[in-house]
């Protein structure tokens, strides 16, 4: 009897392997082998010829070129990392705050949610890149500024002065006001994060809040003692997602693509991409090891 049950389970285990098989084949042929060959390319000089390509092993010359003699690689890479360090906390705080807001009951909630998730479908590097260099929009913007937008700049300035006078560190003030002026960038990057947070908020049992309310907690206390710990695993998830997402659509990746397909220096491009990946892995490792210590798991 026991033997029979075991064999069914074993059989099912093998069937489960069939399910993974297509993915595994793809993993092997479209991920692992390209990854290894990319490492090989980064160590060699790749020449595309009529029939395929030829490889000459040149050691770390590509890496040396990217780091020491390429005119902009190091600068762009540091800029990307700094950008991520600046934007990620803002995106996380912003999306958590608005997920909490959108989770409340109010009139027009469906519409508000629909608008807030628009960035999920419009989050595309190409739209952003077209928008940045766009003449017409800046003209309309400046027209708006002359008709009434000037006020907002002054307000921003006054706010800065006020905050500095009230004894807050000037770097922190600059960070905050900078965030206000980069609001579109932050909003457009936090669609998926709001979605994830919102789904997480819905899965918190209402009985927790009821119990807290009976015990006499205020909304503020309920947020910090119930919502925040319950949602903290998702903060980790969102942190990882934000970092990966912002790495995918930034200047460095554009440089990597351009090096490969505009100047046809495949080896250099591969070396750049590998160093880039190493930096991402480092950033991710540091942040997750810091944050995961604070994460609260209910079970």
């Amino acid at each position, binding site marked *: 009897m026991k033997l029979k049950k075991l064999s069914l389970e074993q059989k*099912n285990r093998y069937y489960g*392997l069939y399910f993974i098989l297509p993915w595994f084949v793809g993993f092997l042929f479209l991920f692992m082998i390209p990854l290894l060959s*990319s490492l090989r390319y980064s160590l060699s000089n790749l020449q595309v010829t009529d029939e395929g390509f030829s490889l000459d092993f040149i050691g770390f010359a590509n890496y040396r070129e990217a780091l020491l003699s390429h005119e902009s690689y190091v600068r762009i890479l540091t800029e990307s990392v700094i950008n991520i360090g600046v934007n990620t906390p803002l995106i996380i705080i912003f999306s958590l705050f608005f997920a909490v807001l959108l989770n409340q009951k109010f009139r027009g909630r469906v519409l508000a949610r629909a608008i807030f998730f628009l960035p*999920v479908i419009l989050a595309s590097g190409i739209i952003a890149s*077209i928008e940045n260099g766009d003449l017409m929009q800046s003209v309309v913007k400046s027209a708006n500024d002359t008709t009434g937008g000037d006020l907002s700049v002054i307000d921003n300035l006054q706010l800065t002065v006020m905050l500095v006078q009230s004894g807050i560190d000037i770097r922190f003030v600059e960070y905050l006001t900078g965030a206000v002026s980069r609001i579109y960038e932050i909003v457009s990057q936090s669609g998926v994060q709001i979605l994830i947070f919102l789904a997480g908020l819905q899965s918190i049992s209402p009985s927790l809040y009821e119990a807290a309310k009976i015990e006499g907690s205020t909304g503020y206390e309920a947020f910090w003692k119930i919502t925040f710990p319950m949602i903290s695993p998702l903060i980790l998830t969102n942190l990882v997602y934000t970092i990966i997402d912002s790495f995918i659509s930034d200047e460095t990746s554009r440089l990597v693509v351009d090096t490969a397909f505009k100047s046809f220096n495949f080896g250099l491009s591969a070396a750049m991409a590998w160093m880039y990946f190493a930096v991402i892995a480092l950033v991710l490792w540091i942040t997750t090891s810091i944050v995961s210590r604070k994460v609260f798991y209910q079970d």
Partner: protein
Amino acid sequence: MKSETAVHGRQAREERLQRMASAAYWVEFAKKWLWVVIRFVLIFGIAFVIVYPILLKLSIAFKSMDDLYDSTVIWVPKAFTLDNFKLVFTAMNYPKVLTNTLLLSSGVMVLQTITCVLAGYGFARVKFRGSGLLFGAVIFTILVPSHTIMIPLYLHFKNFDLFGLIELIKGKPANLINTYWPFIISSVLGMGVKTGLYVYIFRQFFRGIPREIEEAAYVDGAGYFSTFSRVILPNAIPSMVTVMLFSFVWQWNDSFFTNMYLNEPKVMSAMMSSSGYAIATFLGGGEQAATASYVQDPFFMSMMMNTSVLMAILPLIILYVFVQRHFVESVERSGLVG
């Protein structure tokens, strides 16, 4: 019965009057409404920030040449015109590009969802030595940026071969660049745009389904595959909808793979990056002699760019209007966070 409710109503009114007499009631009242106002301002403000670029594009797209140089026109053009749309429509070969993109996105969507649902189920149920490591590989595919494996993939598809089979038949390996095969192959094998994420979503979802359901199906005499297709799969519809939506939208917006695999702008995202060039060549091409001078005008080109971006995202927005309710709900139910 009637008098009872009347008495009840009077009592309630009196109670309310009593409550209104105390200061605490008014403090609570003010607090509540203050919060409502602040919340409204915040949500409205951010919603405006999100919608603003789209509104701006809409406004620009309807402008005519005269409105461009009229300094009194900021938002609402004096002369509404559809000329911009017409021009972009023909210059970009819009209907063909649209059908291409629709076909590609939906094809990729279906194939990716099938592969990922299978893989996710497998990962949720299979347990053997090293299965954790195998799932770690899924996470690894999410973490590694696709730029790292870009060049080998490109060369791989340029000289595509299945163990020398194609070379045996045709004499040389097949060149799949500038066809749709790279997309189809990579989505069937689960290595398309952000596919690791989909596998992860499905695995999380299937882990939440109790094994007892399957065991009940086995007892009733269902095999492994019919259990999957008739018991498990219907349960997975919310998460499948989530993955399908994401996969459709991200494939639509993906410019990285499309620019890499396709030399000509056949699909929407690739077309957008080269829209300026396409319009310039279209206008410069002989017959439109009157409009040829416009090409040098940066304002005009910018207007065209805005119109083309709007037209590229318009189908997505229309689609979104219909499915957005489902979008939010399905993510909530899909067990993405479970």
